[in-house]
């Protein structure tokens, strides 16, 4: 399977998830236990009306989806996955109006558990908005 095939399959996978579609998620890169997924800023996703900053929950949903996608493209080919736990550190507010991009990496895999690390960035790619660590199931 070529990288393009894998990216196309991954985009179809994301579009089959109603919540990912509702948030407008787009697969940027995917393969070998890594995924990059982005989504646009939108008025209705604002969590703090005084600043226009997107709600932390939206960042959670993006990070969770990105981690799940990274598990699904791990070379060991898990059949499905679910979140066991996810911790998110919010380092700064995402700049209103900018796209948010999550990068997730499956840094360790056992027979039944996948361990993930992820970061979320806005258009300032040097200073992450949030970082996450999580454990996911790997169903065989």
């Amino acid at each position, binding site marked *: 399977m070529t990288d393009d095939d894998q990216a196309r399959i991954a985009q179809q996978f994301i579009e*089959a*998830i*109603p*919540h*990912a*579609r*509702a948030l407008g998620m787009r697969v940027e890169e995917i393969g070998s236990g890594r995924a990059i997924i982005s989504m646009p800023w939108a*008025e*209705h*996703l*604002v*969590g*703090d*009306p*005084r600043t226009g900053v*997107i*709600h*932390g*929950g*939206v960042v*959670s*949903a*993006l*990070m*969770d*989806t990105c981690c*799940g996608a990274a598990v699904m493209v791990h070379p060991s080919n898990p059949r*499905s996955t*679910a*979140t*066991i*736990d*996810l*911790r*998110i*550190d*919010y380092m700064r*507010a995402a700049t209103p109006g900018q796209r948010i991009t999550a990068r997730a990496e499956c840094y360790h895999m056992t027979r039944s558990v996948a361990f993930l690390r992820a970061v979320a960035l806005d258009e300032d790619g040097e200073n992450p908005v949030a970082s996450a660590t999580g454990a996911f199931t790997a169903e065989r």
Partner: protein
Amino acid sequence: MDRNEPLHQIKTRRDSALNALVSGVPYLTWLGVRFDRRGDELTAILPYADKLIGNPRLPAIHGGVTAAFLETTAIIELAWSAMWEDLESGRIAPDAAVPDSLPRLPKTIDFTVDYLRSGLPRDAYARARVVRSGRRYASVHVEAWQDNRSRLMAQATGHFLMPQP
């Protein structure tokens, strides 16, 4: 406290303050989250909607939705409990139509979600407990469930930075 304050006046004050707090956040409206109030106790309600699905095969609610629901419940509970005394004493009167009258919201420092059961395609409920609230930092624990209060769907702990006066 005025023991003889008319009941409808008390209820109106509390309900309109809660409504102002919640309706000021666009994302809560989009998710469909509502809050039920009994005295000062809040229960968050997430009515089921197709757009909340994360696994269409089971089907199950998206883990990110569960995280967002818990986080938002924690933030509203924290803001609500922080403003309760000022609200009851009449020092503040938050009004949805006047953005400046709304209290500033706490900011999430970190949030850890423990997923216990997959979310079923039906309504979910959550309650948050402020474990410790200092002048600057607060720690909050939240639980979410669906059909049975004792069978949790997820729980979470978060740390928050309180708005400075």
